[in-house]
């Protein structure tokens, strides 16, 4: 069995499961946010349900339109807050304590290797980076899981992505996942579990691994997963308050398809409007002028991302025509960035630094685009109108490219700011 099949079997009480099989599985954690939880809460209240299956296994994070962006959002956040109090939800994260959910929940040790997690947010697939099975669902499925602690699944086929080679400087998890989506398309892993492995993956930090699994949904996948290793255990051991289990794929595990990529020469990648599959090397897009750069989100708002951005921005100013908005993904990341002097670098570069929020990523608040404007963002989607006006455009990149682009006012490679010696096979 694959790691995905093993986790699903373990949560179904079966020796083994097969792709295509329908199962009812036990859920370790069920997650909702200020956009998706209100529909789930309404479903519970309509049915007269007065308690959730386990108040410690439900997580509510008002992060999308919080701090409240307008009156209607304020009402939605209030509804979630009141529900959390009334139903004694232990893990409700208020503004000032919250973060972008998929950065916050691993950081808080709430998701662990071997877990089965569902969340009413499509980027719930992020936690696969820890060797967990996690997938996005809608609000009604969240309601079902909050009531019963169980949910039905069709066991997905697994697809293996073997990534070879040492990566070049300024190339990270974001570039790998953009490259893969560029190769297979936005429905290239339709309904499947994407399993990432190989030297290029095991060399990556946990932060970079989160970026990869985060965007599995952009290839249409049900989940993305990376087998746990020493780095996973190192990340988890300081945070875990419950036992966890490391699962690995068997040598004879069955895959619907196996892709092999040599990534030694991979350059920083950029996804052009209006689909994450429209991927080109950043160097080919040097004539694309931008009005705004956003560094943050559940894809790239973590410590490694801020450190990378700071390396590029140090000693430079944002282009006079450009707004650079930097959003540390959690309070802890924000505080650490202050300790390390990164925020000072951002302010010196004339960037705006925001409290954690999903904000502009989904065109919510904190930096929407006007008609005809163009942004580069370290976020995950560049659909038409995603960050504001229907006639605005979003290019997706890693934080180094976004920072370099903010300085030069056009899509730029990090090497244009910092001359980085590199020889083939680095």
């Amino acid at each position: 069995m694959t790691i995905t099949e093993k986790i699903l079997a373990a949560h179904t009480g079966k020796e083994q499961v097969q792709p295509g099989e329908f199962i009812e599985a036990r859920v370790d954690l069920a997650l909702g946010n200020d956009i998706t939880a209100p529909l789930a809460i309404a479903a519970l209240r309509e049915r007269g349900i007065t308690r959730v299956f386990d108040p410690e296994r439900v997580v509510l994070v008002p992060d999308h339109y919080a701090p409240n962006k307008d009156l209607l959002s304020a009402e939605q956040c209030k509804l979630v807050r009141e529900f959390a109090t009334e139903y004694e939800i232990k893990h409700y994260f208020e503004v000032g304590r919250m973060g972008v959910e998929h950065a916050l929940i691993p950081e808080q040790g709430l998701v662990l290797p071997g877990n089965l997690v569902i969340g009413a947010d499509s980027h719930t697939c992020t936690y696969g980076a820890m060797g967990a099975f996690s997938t996005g669902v809608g609000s009604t499925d969240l309601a079902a899981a909050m009531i019963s602690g169980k949910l039905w699944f069709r066991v997905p086929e697994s697809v293996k992505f073997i990534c070879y080679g040492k990566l070049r400087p300024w190339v990270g998890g974001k570039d790998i996942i953009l490259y893969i989506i560029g190769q297979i398309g936005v429905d290239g892993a339709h309904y499947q579990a994407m399993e990432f492995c190989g030297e290029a993956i095991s060399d990556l930090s946990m932060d970079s691994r989160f970026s990869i699994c985060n965007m599995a949904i952009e290839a249409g996948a049900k989940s993305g997963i990376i087998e746990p290793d020493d780095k996973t255990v190192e990340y988890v051991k300081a945070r875990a308050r419950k036992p966890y289990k490391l699962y690995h794929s068997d040598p004879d595990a069955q895959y619907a398809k196996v892709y092999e990529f040599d990534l030694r020469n991979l350059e920083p990648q950029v996804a052009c409007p209006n689909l994450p599959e429209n991927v080109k090397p950043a160097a080919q897009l040097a004539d694309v002028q931008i009005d705004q750069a956003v560094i943050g989100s559940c894809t790239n708002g973590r410590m490694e991302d801020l450190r990378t951005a700071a390396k590029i921005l140090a000693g430079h100013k944002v282009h006079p025509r450009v707004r650079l908005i930097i959003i540390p993904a959690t309070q802890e990341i924000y505080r650490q960035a202050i300790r390390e002097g990164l925020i000072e670098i951002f302010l010196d570069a004339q960037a705006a630094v925001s409290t954690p929020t999903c904000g502009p990523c989904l065109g919510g608040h904190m930096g929407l685009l006007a008609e005809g404007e163009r942004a580069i963002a370290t976020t995950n989607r560049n659909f038409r109108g995603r960050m504001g006006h229907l006639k605005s455009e979003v290019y997706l990149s890693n934080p180094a490219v976004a920072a370099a682009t903010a300085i030069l006012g056009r899509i730029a490679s990090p090497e244009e700011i910092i001359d980085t010696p590199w020889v083939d096979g680095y």
Partner: protein
Amino acid sequence: MIIKGKTHKYGDNVNTDEIIPAQYLNTIDPNVLGRHCMAGIDGAFAGKVKPGDILVAGWNFGCGSSREHAPVSIKGTGVAAVIAASFARIFYRNSINIGLPILECPQAAAIVTGDVLEIDLSGGLIRNITQNTTYQAGAFPPFLQQVC
């Protein structure tokens, strides 16, 4: 159950940001959401769609965000069914969960806006009255028929 209605046709990879842009996610009211349905791809849709009409699209309909507001907004307009060559996974589950009839049918590519269809939901047979043809949509697996 038989559904008969006029179609509105869209292309491939219609995402949930297009079906209901994020700026309208500050409510869960189906009627309000319905008034902004498809606003990200066709601002005129909500004004021209009539209860009982049928939405038709290409591959990977409903990709992107997990927002259940997307199928809720479609239901809010009174659309009786959605036919697509394929559906994104979360949208598919969400539609079943809220009782929006959806049919997966690659032959749907031949349908054009304005065609009148008659759909037999139990068997998945789609009759295109305008073009005088029929298409067979994939039937729900038995497990899902129980969910419905």
